[in-house]
């Protein structure tokens, strides 16, 4: 093969891949929202040591952090319809994208829960005690004193988790999702030229990761200035 690597093809494929970028971003965004919401709930279960729920949260987090997301995705894809069928809900006709979003959301929840828990634990106990001593309720102390301080601690780790999530979405194509990676595979199947497609995908993921990193470092700096 003479023209083994054709750089102009990389630029030809880039716009085609970018046209599927919204799917990748949709997965990342919705999974982050689900993950943060569930993550806060799981973290609270563990922080306040609510019986039974605390143990369930520990097992859930351990499972989600101990198994590959690839396996989780297929378990949700095959298992969720079976589970819901027993209650009488038929989701066999659902778009595959929903399953992917659910999986990534559930996965992110486990990682976020640990992150949030660690951040809240790192706030000294005295802060909560001081809040109680001036007559705040538990909820007030949490929302006005503990939460704002822990957000600043969470932010850098959240940035890293978000970049990890972005990179994990590259596995969604195994379920047949036509996101950036899915498009690369489609191109490779059509043209028998796989290398250029993967190089373009690498460029897209690289630029997105750097972009996310920069955004988070800017936000962090802004927050620190406010704090001081």
């Amino acid at each position, binding site marked *: 093969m003479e023209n083994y690597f054709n750089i102009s093809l990389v630029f030809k494929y880039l716009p085609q891949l970018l046209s599927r970028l919204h799917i990748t971003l949709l997965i990342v965004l919705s999974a982050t929202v689900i993950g943060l919401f569930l993550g806060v709930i799981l973290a609270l279960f563990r922080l306040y040591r609510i019986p039974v729920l605390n143990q369930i949260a520990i097992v859930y987090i351990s499972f989600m*952090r*101990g198994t*590959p997301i690839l*396996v989780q995705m297929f378990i949700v894809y095959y298992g969720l319809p*079976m589970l819901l069928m027993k209650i009488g809900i038929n989701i066999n006709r659902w778009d595959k994208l929903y399953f992917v979003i659910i999986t990534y959301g559930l996965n992110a929840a486990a990682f976020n829960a640990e992150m949030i828990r660690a951040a809240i634990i790192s706030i000294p106990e005295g802060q909560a005690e001081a809040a109680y001593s001036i007559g705040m309720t538990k909820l007030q102390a949490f929302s006005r004193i503990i939460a704002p301080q822990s957000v600043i601690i969470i932010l850098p780790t959240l940035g890293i988790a978000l970049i990890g999530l972005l*990179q994990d979405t590259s*596995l969604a194509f195994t379920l047949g999702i036509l996101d950036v990676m899915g498009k690369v595979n489609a191109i490779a199947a059509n043209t028998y030229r*796989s290398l250029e497609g993967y190089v373009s995908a*690498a460029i897209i993921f690289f630029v997105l990761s750097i972009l996310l990193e920069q955004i988070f470092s800017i936000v962090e700096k802004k927050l620190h200035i406010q704090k001081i």
Partner: protein
Amino acid sequence: MGFDISFMIVALKEAIKYIPVTLILAVIPLIIGSIIGTIIAVIRIYNIKVLSKLVQVFVVIIRGIPLVVILYLVYFETTNEFDTIAAKFNWNIHSKDINVIYIAIIAISISAIANISETIRGGLISVGKGQFEAAYSIGLTRSQTLRRIIIPQGLPVILPSLCSNFIGLIKGSSIAYLITVVDIMNGALITATGNYKFLEAYIAAAIVYWALCVCVEKASFIFEKRLSACVKGEVL
């Protein structure tokens, strides 16, 4: 179609057989990553001209690309280009003869090098500049400083994150099934190709992965405790 527990146990037994493959896919990259990662970390800490910038670019680029993309790039690179090179040098090897597991190991190692170098760099930085200066002031050379002062202090910081890197590698190695490596994932799936009971197979694979990761976590916890006791004993 209900859940078939007896089949899940069949898949589980099959998956357990392939634990060594997954461990090879995770341990070899861990070792390669630790060695080259340490070199990269040292280059970056000492800020060696040109080389430091070069490895920094490598680390940033590799960390920005998902493992699957690296895997496919290495896979197609070797399968396509290898034959051309082999023909040029009159080698008697074809890309088809290369075991895919080597390709997977190379791909996972590349990403492991970048990730582990950051872990090690973070650990070495956490030791503090004063330690370097103090070591130089009593006449230690650079390599002596690293061996006797910096690495012993950085190790307790590095090891826990190295263990979480290892867990990440175990989980990351599951994508090797995409290039037809038969690891835990594929071992479980092969049993299901006959009867389409994929859910059972995936759950069996999940259980094996989970058990592996929990074991590594527990081992790391014990190791960490010993180490911190050891370090404290020395200091006090």
